[in-house]
């Protein structure tokens, strides 16, 4: 095989430095998209090496090939169906045994493979010296020590990749299990000879014995009689080993992994590492929480302090452009063009750049240092009350700043179901824009206590609706299983790249929707549709919610940016002293409705991007109905209680 194009896939456990290697190899020649139909990022890049073009794919973090999570099924699907020319299995030298489990599973699939023994520096600091040549002999594939973050060993890694692609390495014989299992695996593999499969029979046999639904469906459809053979072999294994077949095979593989890793590893005396000492504090039942709050407050403050500054700078800039535009192009039509087309871009830019970029950077730092995992650990039990596990705390908390990046942050949840519910809950968290309305109107004119009541009501709604959503949406709850990564220094390069990629994605997907949304609202305004809408809405706004009729228009414009509701209301009412034109009950109900009624257009755009237009519309619909129903109840409740 002397093709000039080679496809290479990087695969490995989470947190082994796979992405660091990927970034070093591809530099800026990479692009990120989603795996088809999944909200999991697919990173691809190219590298010119020795006169060849290498297409490199970074597969999501994978612990095993049993297709438990979305990430893992993507990896498995990719290897079995796309068949990359060479597989680079990145293993963490400091946790060899656990990492070798996947390596051994991959060997069963018999691809052309090179093992990158990554983070050998960390392993050495932990007192582990690994004999890579010996490991290569045992595994039968090349093993190259690397340090991805420092570009160490990557040259020889690629040399080996080329050599493997040329077929200069003899494929090793697959790992042998103990005779009890081995004979049965072989027997089943032989039985499968007659079945037409795109992957090795032995591998299929192993998955069948494990009880893998996907492979079962595939095989039994063609040869139903095999099911009986599998059942028989499975119960034989259970009788011999005393474990069920899946467990016996996993145990066996881990036993081999253990044997191999202790065979090639020389231990120095184990000392308490820096990370362990930090964790003693970071996970302490009192100090840990104090630290967490400090970290979060600091992060929040810096992100939104920075965001506000940049945002107001941008606003001023746009304002100047706007006045320059108006003075040079007077007239209604030019005004409409600005309001209809440019305002959308302005709204998008003043949300996206100032808030999303600092947010992504902060989140990425939190994640890369390993502290995010500690937060998830500390918050797990509290979040379980709602139905999430610990990681769900992060998007919810960030929602207080801005829902847009927070909804993007829901990606840290494992399953599609949890991602969706988490994003739904996040879209109900009062962001800064809503806080402006709550504080600027209710706290100022009705009283701070009432503003607090609004927040409390919101938390109750979030709590109740999330629980309900977990009940309604089908699916098995996933508990928290997460590797506690070692603490490490975040890399500037990686962080900036992540921020850039996310920003680009947001601009491409959210901007069109924001601009179109803005345009249609402005157009309806010009053609007089809005006053009709206001009239049509008045039974709801005036009768049911007890609000002034103009709030109809205000609420529609609020979809663009929620803080605009207050500004617009002031200009329509002709005063910023709301106490003169609205009763306390009206202000409370208005702020309540603004808080709940719909995610702003940028959030809807993100929801649409992450979950599809239908789901985004559904979330919006639920929230609008909720705001109307509860808003009316709040209104009449307050009136009945004697408030006016």
């Amino acid at each position, binding site marked *: 095989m002397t093709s000039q194009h080679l496809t290479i896939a990087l695969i490995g456990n989470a947190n082994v430095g796979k992405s660091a290697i990927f970034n070093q190899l591809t530099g800026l020649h990479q692009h990120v998209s989603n795996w088809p139909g999944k909200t999991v990022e697919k990173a691809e890049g190219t590298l010119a090496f020795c006169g060849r073009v290498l297409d490199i794919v970074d597969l999501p973090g994978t612990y*095993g090939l049993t297709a438990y999570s979305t990430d893992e099924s993507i990896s498995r699907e990719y290897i079995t169906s796309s068949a990359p020319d060479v597989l680079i299995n990145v293993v963490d030298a400091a946790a060899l045994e656990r990492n070798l489990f996947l390596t051994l599973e991959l060997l069963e699939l018999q691809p052309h493979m090179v093992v990158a023994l990554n983070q050998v520096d960390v392993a050495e600091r932990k007192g582990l010296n690994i004999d890579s040549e010996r490991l290569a002999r045992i595994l039968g594939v090349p093993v190259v020590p690397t340090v991805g973050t420092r570009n160490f060993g990557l040259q020889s890694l690629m040399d080996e990749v080329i050599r493997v692609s040329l077929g200069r390495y003899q494929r090793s014989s697959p790992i042998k299990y103990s005779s009890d299992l081995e004979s049965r695996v072989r027997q089943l593999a032989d039985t499968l000879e007659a079945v037409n499969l795109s992957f090795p029979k032995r591998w299929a046999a192993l998955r069948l014995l494990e009880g893998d639904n996907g492979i079962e469906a595939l095989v039994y459809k063609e040869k139903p009689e095999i099911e009986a053979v599998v059942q028989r072999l499975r119960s034989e294994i259970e009788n011999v080993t005393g474990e069920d077949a899946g*467990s016996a095979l996993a145990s066996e593989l881990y036993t081999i992994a253990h044997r191999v890793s202790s065979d090639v590893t020389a231990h120095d005396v184990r000392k308490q590492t820096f990370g362990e000492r930090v964790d003693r504090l970071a996970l302490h039942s009192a100090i840990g929480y104090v630290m967490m709050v400090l970290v979060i407050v600091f992060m929040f403050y810096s992100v939104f302090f920075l965001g506000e500054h940049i945002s107001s700078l941008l606003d001023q800039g746009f304002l100047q452009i706007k006045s320059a535009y108006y003075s040079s192009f007077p007239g209604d039509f030019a005004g409409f063009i600005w309001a209809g087309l440019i305002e959308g871009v302005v709204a998008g830019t003043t949300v996206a750049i100032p808030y999303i970029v600092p947010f992504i950077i902060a989140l990425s730092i939190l994640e890369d240092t390993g502290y995010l995992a500690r937060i998830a650990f500390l918050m797990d*039990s509290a979040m379980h009350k709602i139905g999430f596990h610990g990681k769900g705390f992060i998007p919810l908390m960030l929602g207080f700043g801005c829902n847009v990046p927070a909804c993007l942050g829901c990606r840290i949840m494992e399953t599609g179901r949890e991602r969706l519910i988490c994003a739904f809950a996040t879209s109900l968290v009062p962001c800064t824009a809503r806080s402006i309305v709550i504080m600027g109107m209710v706290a100022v004119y009705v009283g701070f206590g009432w503003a607090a009541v609004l927040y409390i009501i919101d938390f109750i709604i979030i709590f109740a609706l999330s629980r309900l959503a977990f009940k309604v949406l089908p699916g098995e709850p996933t508990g928290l299983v997460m590797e506690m990564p070692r603490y490490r220094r975040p890399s500037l390069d990686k962080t900036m790249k992540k921020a850039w990629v996310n920003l680009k994605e947001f601009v491409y997907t959210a901007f069109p929707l924001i601009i179109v949304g803005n345009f249609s609202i402005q157009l309806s305004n010009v053609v007089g549709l809005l006053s009709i809408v206001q009239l049509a809405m008045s039974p709801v706004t005036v009768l049911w919610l007890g609000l002034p009729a103009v709030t109809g228009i205000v609420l529609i414009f609020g979809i663009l940016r929620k803080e605009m509701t207050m500004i617009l209301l002031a200009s329509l009412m002709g005063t910023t002293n709301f106490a003169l034109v609205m009763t306390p009950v009206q202000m409370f109900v208005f702020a309540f409705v603004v808080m709940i009624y719909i995610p702003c257009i940028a959030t809807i755009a993100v929801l649409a991007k992450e979950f599809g237009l239908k789901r985004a519309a559904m979330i919006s619909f639920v929230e609008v109905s909720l705001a109307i129903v509860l808003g009316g109840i709040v209104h009449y409740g307050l009136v009945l209680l004697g408030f006016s």
Partner: protein
Amino acid sequence: MSTDSVQEYLEAIHAFNETGEPAKTTELAEKLAVSPPSVTEMLKRLAEDGLVEYEPYKGATLTGMGMAYAERIVRKHRLLERYLHDSLGLKREKVHDEACRLEHSLSDDVADAMCRALDQPATCPDDHNPIPPCSLEVKDCDDCVAARKKANDRPRLVTQLSNLRTGEEAVVAFVRAGNGAYKRLLDMGLTQGTRLRVVNVAPFKGPVEIAVRDTRLALGRGLASFVFVEISEGKAPRHGAPPGPHSGRRWRGHAQ
């Protein structure tokens, strides 16, 4: 094996721990109707044997090992309550005292047979506390008899991973979970016979962090309770504990 008295202590501490609090010396003294100094004395011994973590003034909390012993007897107690109530029709307020008398003489075989006959009851009848899970390596009740026989041949001290305290070590005995979680736990290296050490336990029933196969893993409390671990009885509780009166004590939870 421990004496009845040790069992009584473990059972009483278990009752306090179940509410999420350490068992205080004075509370234990009142509950077991013994003097506070002898409770303190006993708690120190239990702590030496690795059955409880005892801090003066704060109280005692069962370790994983203590929990394993306590759950054996609590399980028998609550199964007996169920049996007396459901099958024999005794009044709810009666079953507790009866169960207290019978629990120490009930064999494991009979307890498991009761569990099977009652179709794995989840809670006890008087105060609806959960019955500790079956510690046999079974998927469902069909395997019960065979597993019981195996356990009798090679008795071992098994409890859920979620019961272990920081610093305790154990070996994975088996995993009892739904398909997805089961495979996940296996993939992460929690196969039978794997040695693990609890590094951190998050407060408020949060996750546990374990060191296993040279890595650190955080497991939510729910998932951790699917993992049953064997605790080595290196330091078995000794005999000849101070006499604890067996009758006439005042127990929790008389439903009046």
